[in-house]
């Protein structure tokens, strides 16, 4: 799920950036530092949309670095248990397939793939129904439900299922 939230961060700025462009430097550094990171609480920071407030800088003794408390608005993405997501399949193997929804990697185990879909190995490993009408392979788009998440310091990993109503392939690269 995406959220637009306000976060705060203490930015340390090198003295060489002081000057007219201090703010810009600060913002660009903030973007560099924050965008794409992941925290267990908020999920992935997708983009910074604006700066709420830059507090007063505090010069650090000895280093000359200045610490600014920066409040910024950002879009975060955090997957939740039970959430339905659309994701692109990145890898298929006999144990299931991996899909990605933005920065989140989701694994769908073969136990959570409908029983009528079978794994076909080969050049392009895939899961196919017995009649061949539905095929999951790399680059397929699937709709899945997250059943579990594991949150690390720098990564969120999810387990999903497509064994439910209205879940499964939504776009097949071969037919598209």
């Amino acid at each position, binding site marked *: 799920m995406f959220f637009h939230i306000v976060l705060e961060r203490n930015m340390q700025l090198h003295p060489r950036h002081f000057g007219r462009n201090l703010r810009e430097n600060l913002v660009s550094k903030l973007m560099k530092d924050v965008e794409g990171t992941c925290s267990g609480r908020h999920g992935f920071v997708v983009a910074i949309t604006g700066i709420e407030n830059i507090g007063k800088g505090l010069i650090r003794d000895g280093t000359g670095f200045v610490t600014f408390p920066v409040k910024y608005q950002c879009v975060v993405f955090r997957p939740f248990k039970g959430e339905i997501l659309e994701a692109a399949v990145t890898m298929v193997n006999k144990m299931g397939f991996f899909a990605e929804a933005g920065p989140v990697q989701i694994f769908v185990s073969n136990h*959570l793939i409908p029983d009528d879909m079978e794994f076909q190995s080969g050049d392009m490993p895939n899961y196919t129904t017995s009649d061949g009408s539905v095929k999951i392979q790399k680059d397929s788009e699937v709709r899945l439900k997250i059943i579990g998440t594991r949150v690390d310091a720098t990564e969120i990993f999810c387990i999903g299922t497509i064994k439910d109503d209205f879940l499964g392939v939504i776009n097949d690269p071969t037919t598209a």
Partner: protein
Amino acid sequence: MARRRDEEDDDVDDEEYEDEEEQLMDDEDYDEDEDVGRGRGGSSTKRRRSDFIDDVAEEDDEEDEDDDDEDFGGGKRHNKAPRVGSQFFDLEAQVDSDEEEEEDEGEDDFIVESGGDLPEEDVGRRMHRRPLPLREDEQEDVEALERSIQARYARSSHTEYDEETTDVEQQALLPSVRDPKLWMVKCAIGRERETAVCLMQKYIDKGSELQIRSVIALDHLKNYIYIEADKEAHVREAVKGLRNIFGTKIMLVPIREMTDVLSVESKAIDLSRDTWVRMKIGTYKGDLAQVVDVDNVRQRVTVKLIPRIDLQALANKLEGREVAKKKAFVPPPRFMNVDEARELHIRVERRRDPMTGDYFENIGGMLFKDGFLYKTVSMKSISAQNIKPTFDELEKFRTPSGNGEGEMVGLSTLFANRKKGHFMKGDAVIVVKGDLKNLKGWVEKVEEENVHIRPEMKGLPKTLAVNEKELCKYFEPGNHVKVVSGTKEGATGMVVKVEQHVLIILSDTTKEHIRVFADDVVESSEVTTGVTKIGEYELHDLVLLDNNSFGVIIRVESEAFQVLKGVPERLEVSLVKLREIKCKIEKKFNVQDRYRNTVSVKDVVRILEGPCKGKQGPVEHIYKGVLFVYDRHHLEHAGFICAKADSCCIVGGSRSNGDRNGDSFSRFGGFKTPPRVPPSPRRFSRGGPPYDSGGRNRGGRGGHDALIGTTVKIRQGPFKGYRGRVVDIKGQSVRVELESQMKVVTVDRNFISDNVVISTPYRDTSRYGMGSETPMHPSRTPLHPYMTPMRDPGATPIHDGMRTPMRDRAWNPYAPMSPPRDNWEEGNPASWGTSPQYHPGSPPSRAYEAPTPGSGWASTPGGNYSEAGTPRDSSLAYANAPSPYTPSTPSGQPMTPSSGSYIPGTPGGQPMTPGTGGLDLMSPVIGADNEGPWFMPDILVNVRKSGDETLGVIQEVLPDGSCKVALGSNGSGDTVIVLPSEMEIVAPRKSDKIKIMGGSLRGVTGKLIGVDGTDGIVRIDDSLDVKILDLVILAKLP
């Protein structure tokens, strides 16, 4: 038990309808009966145990009886009123009734009734009673007994509604000093029972003359019997003349141990059908078997086994041929194939079992069904306790036609072996047996056997007490769990599927499925790998195998490793036993990548060809020109990829040694790459760090131990007291170059103390040393490898002044974070060397000027200094920045992740999160694609032809790398062909229009809206996205 029960009923009847006298007679008979039972040893105790239960069951009888009492005697009501409410509590009721009877009918009834309470007491009391009618002091005794009983039970009447009293009561029943004692008497081995029966017979014959009370022979105790009597003399008297008893040693059993004599270990596990057992002896020793039938009478069990039959041997035997006497090996378990047997001309009979109606194949007297061997064995030859079938075993037992029931059956065995304290408060559980089956709930409280659960369903009582055996832990898909027992102990993962009590877990580390029992698992948020080490070999170690092949351990199994072999052409994984591993390879090697950059451990490389083309990641191991690269996006082989060194290239590494423009021309305005430092004067490396062949930052930031280069003192061993510098570290041994002797010695790591003043950080020396490795420094004597000319007095002071704080800051705190190699030195040598501004710039550099060749400059930390941010140096760096030669400088830099150069400069260390460091390194925008020609059409270049510089606009890039350039700042002039070496990209300034020349956005145009160090902030024209890109890959547009 049933018999006993009848007797009890009889007793009750007696009480009611017969008079005292008769009843005593009856009791007498009964007691004798009891004695016989005791003579039989074990069985008697069993019977008594059941008495205990019977008392409870007799409640009804007693109730009736009480009613009868009322009819007969009346007036007892007051005593009974409270019982109405407490009837449900067996114990209380039982005590209560005991008491009443005591009051009602006197001692005898009481004794009969409570006879089962505790075996010892039972014995004791019966003893009291039996001689009663026959002794003179009968009356006295009765009174005394009555008193003692009163004393004993008076207490309980006050506390009868308190559950706790049971324990106290039980305690009160234990033998005391006033009770008869137990004596241990030695008898002939194997004649214990016989002796006991003899004594009984003697008692019957002689009656009161024998003053012993009982005799006990225990089945498990050979050579001894117990005799209960008040005095030792009585025992002696009784055993006199018995031929089985010899010796006169009579030992008193201490009071405390008396109970142990008659307590039975409750190891009587019920062998029921379908339980899992293990064979204790024979060919099948240790094999798992399933009980098919139990014959309790004959103490035999029919079990189902996977046969271990050597058909050939069997055939030989059946045909009367000679069979090797003792086979050295046990045939592996294999299902019996009847056809195969027939092929060997073994006669197979098909027979119907008269009992079950099933058909069995009979081969040489053995019964087979569905490939399983059905074998009838003695109960003693199987063990039924603590059987933990593994999945593999259970899997094998699953017959093709097997239905789900087998699974549930296994469950019961599993439950029987459950550890204590298995359930904990808060555990989610599901009821698997009984009326409440499939009810889910949470554990609230755990008692001995019962678990109180809070049911999930509404409308049920708040908590339910359920037997532990009926419960199973419950998990839902998505739970993150940790395996706490079994073969997969320690692994963590997410539950993917729940099949009754079996969970399928996706391991966190291996991304593989693991099947475990729900019982072995707890919910946990922790992430671990499970076992990662066997012996000295650990997961991800590089090991040398038996056949001189080598590989990386990618998985640790219970007794073996999975090793990814070092065969770059194909991915080869083999399962290796511990003993097949020769040794761990700890030596650090350096190799050269395709572009002759030195690759060391931890360097990030990209694989350019082979099966894993395009993957990239840090090098974990190097051996024999093969790299083991860890790509965390690679899911096979635990992320490890094996590749030849020359099919890889360093990410962020300079390609100056090869070429950056895709052809042999250098972009550095014609500077030739300085020739590599000749490797000849290797002797330096004797003292120095492992000799890096490239211009790499020696001192080993990545992979090298921090100890290297420090001055240490040797604490122990033959070199005790010597000081020296650490040259190399190999496992536990450290090579130290002694200060006082011209020697490098190897000492144990534990034998050194490294808290000696860390004098002159050695890294610096070595850097200068690198310069000095050229034969230009003949003055260096082998004795003093570090006394290089550069460090002669003239240079030293400055040098030291320069080196001090910032270097340390720049190098040390960030060592782990910054990219392992600093490309400044490597990329820039030429440029630094010829940079005209640089020389006069700072006094310190002058010191080096004269003796140092170009490459020496490469090693000077000038580049780092400038980034280190001290005013003096930064003036240098920034002075350089806008200089005309900047465009070429970045050519050394471009692959340097910007943060790499930035991080070292941030003293203090806090601001950069590790995440960012990695991010920059991996950032697809920056480093994703560094191939292909850099020059692109439409960009503005500085053309240096025939000595003068003009601006031009590239119109076309020719296949050979040269470009068609239209001269003039907006491309209006003549068109000329220019070699890449003759032109430079014009560095854009802020708010210039730019074109991106590298990375995934190659070819895209945009506007430079800001500059941050070596990064440019670019707004892409098309998408209006803001990107942060390395300045080097940005080219100004006209």
